[in-house]
């Protein structure tokens, strides 16, 4: 805001000044969100950054994080989009309950999610026992376990976003497709999916970001084995206890990756 009066001819919206009771908390909130990130940048050991980044442990954790978050997002898309469609388009008894259940992992502490996964998919778990005896598959403390933990925590973001997009989409387009002879599967594939694509992409981005940052469920269900289950957030936490500077470097990498990918996707998909 400029204290001097605006030059003649420039029209100002006639809504008055934003009230300070809103502006002050807004600025405080912004500072609260941005300052820690700035602190990260200020404290970063810029001089030794290149060699620290080239350390095999860092690269390994980064690779593992990117791969597992991407695979987890793919799993979420494969299962979450049909689930969102079911919730938005098919009325069945208990739909409200199902919708509430889907959002439980959102509010559940991730560690609790990890414990729950262990109880079901662990070696002594209900499904885990069967998986091991029937297929010889064990999930806890494996890379697949990391994917499962991440997908469990991240899927609600995708489902909620896609369901919202489906509810917002004009269902009469689907009716028009039906009058043209399209089966429900064809309608979904050729009409519904393209119409809600921006919602799916936004949901996938959220889901991916959540998976990339996943910590609690991962460390509980998949453990912390470098190269196998040690993702970036785990590496950051571990490094913080032994070598704080390494933790800062790892955090910077995580921050940079998130910002770069979100920004590039935003330009391409999210903004109109």
């Amino acid at each position: 805001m400029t204290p001097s009066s605006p030059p003649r001819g420039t029209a100002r919206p006639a809504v008055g000044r934003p009230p300070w009771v809103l502006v002050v908390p807004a600025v405080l909130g912004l500072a609260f969100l941005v300052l820690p990130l700035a602190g990260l940048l200020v404290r970063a050991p810029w001089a030794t950054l290149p060699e620290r980044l080239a350390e095999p442990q860092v690269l390994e954790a980064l690779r593992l994080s990117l791969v597992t978050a991407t695979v987890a997002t793919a799993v979420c898309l494969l299962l979450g989009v049909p689930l969102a469609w079911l919730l938005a388009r098919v009325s069945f008894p208990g739909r409200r309950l199902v919708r509430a259940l889907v959002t439980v992992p959102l509010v559940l502490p991730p560690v609790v999610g990890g414990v729950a996964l262990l109880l079901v998919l662990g070696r002594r778990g209900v499904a885990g026992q069967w998986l091991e005896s029937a297929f010889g598959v064990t999930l806890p403390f494996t890379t697949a376990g990391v994917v499962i933990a991440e997908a469990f925590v991240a899927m609600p973001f995708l489902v909620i976003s896609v369901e919202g997009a489906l509810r917002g989409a004009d269902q009469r387009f689907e009716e028009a497709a039906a009058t043209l002879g399209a089966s429900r599967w064809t309608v979904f594939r050729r009409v519904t999916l393209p119409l809600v694509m921006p919602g799916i992409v936004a949901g996938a981005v959220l889901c991916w970001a959540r998976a990339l940052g996943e910590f609690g469920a991962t460390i509980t269900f998949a453990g912390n084995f470098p190269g196998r289950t040690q993702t970036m957030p785990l590496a950051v936490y571990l490094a913080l206890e032994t070598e704080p500077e390494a933790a800062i470097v790892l955090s910077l990498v995580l921050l940079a990756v998130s910002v770069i990918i979100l920004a590039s996707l935003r330009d391409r998909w999210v903004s109109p």
Partner: protein
Amino acid sequence: MTLRARLVVDRPAFALDITLEAAAGEVVALLGPNGAGKTTALRALAGLTGLSGGHITLDGRPLHHLAAEQRPIGMVFQDYLLFPHLSALDNVAFGPRCRGASKAAARRVAAELLERVGLAAHAAARPGALSGGQAQRVALARALAVRPRLLLLDEPLAALDAHTRLEVRSQLRRHLAGFGGATVLVTHDPLDAMVLADRLVVIEDGAIVQEGSPADVARRPRTAYVARLVGLNLYQGRAEGHRVKVGELLLTAAERLDGPAFVAFSPAALALYRSRPDGSPRNLWQATVDGIERHGDNVRVHLDGPIAAFADVTPAAVADLDLSPGRPVWAGVKAAETHAYPA
């Protein structure tokens, strides 16, 4: 008859129950006020709204138990609902693709149809880049591309501005004339119905109140709604010969009949006088001016009295007669312009 249907749809606070027939090549218009059930009837024919009762047969085959995608129909929606992510060509090719045509064959059919509706140059355009009139023609081409036996049009011209409407109406009439199957269209605009349809079916409150050729409906309305649509004064009374008793008033009509009857005359046939005219063989009564409004180039005068009536007079006549609300006048209409028909 190719289409025979009895459509019964029961909803809380609304019930539709109509019987509908349409021959091959015939265009039937469902005409009615908003909320009369026209669109519900059309959606029931398409399979988008379930029937509570009744049946639909097309060429002797029952249709009502088939899902929408299995019915041999084409539908044009009120706001067209062209798929925004597909080009005009792919919108038209969508139906043939769904019904098993190869991509190349479907596109060939679509290109032909776009050519026929004069939009070959816009084949690659997305719906967002088309004008209202163009979108309407793409929607028609898309519906025709599945070679339907029954074509359904929901308010096909309602979304267009007045100028485009005129042009699209005559084009649509030409395309409908070239279509071999039965057509059912829904409209609340009497002009659209008169121009496009071979037969009118008027629906009010979920039931048919009148049906017939456009000329017949226009000349012999049977409800106040239809009379207002076609612009006639309409009364119900009892006829004895040329005389029809409407309330306390005795009107002389051109036709002779006996029993319950409708009497109708045009607002333009109604003449107004300041004092009682002498010696003319007219139906005459004393009325009071209730209201005056502009109506095209003329002025429409609402009259109160033994019968409520509209009279269309010139602005000059309004000045000459010094008409204003509350003013008493004499109203007269010639017997030759007063038409009676059985109720």
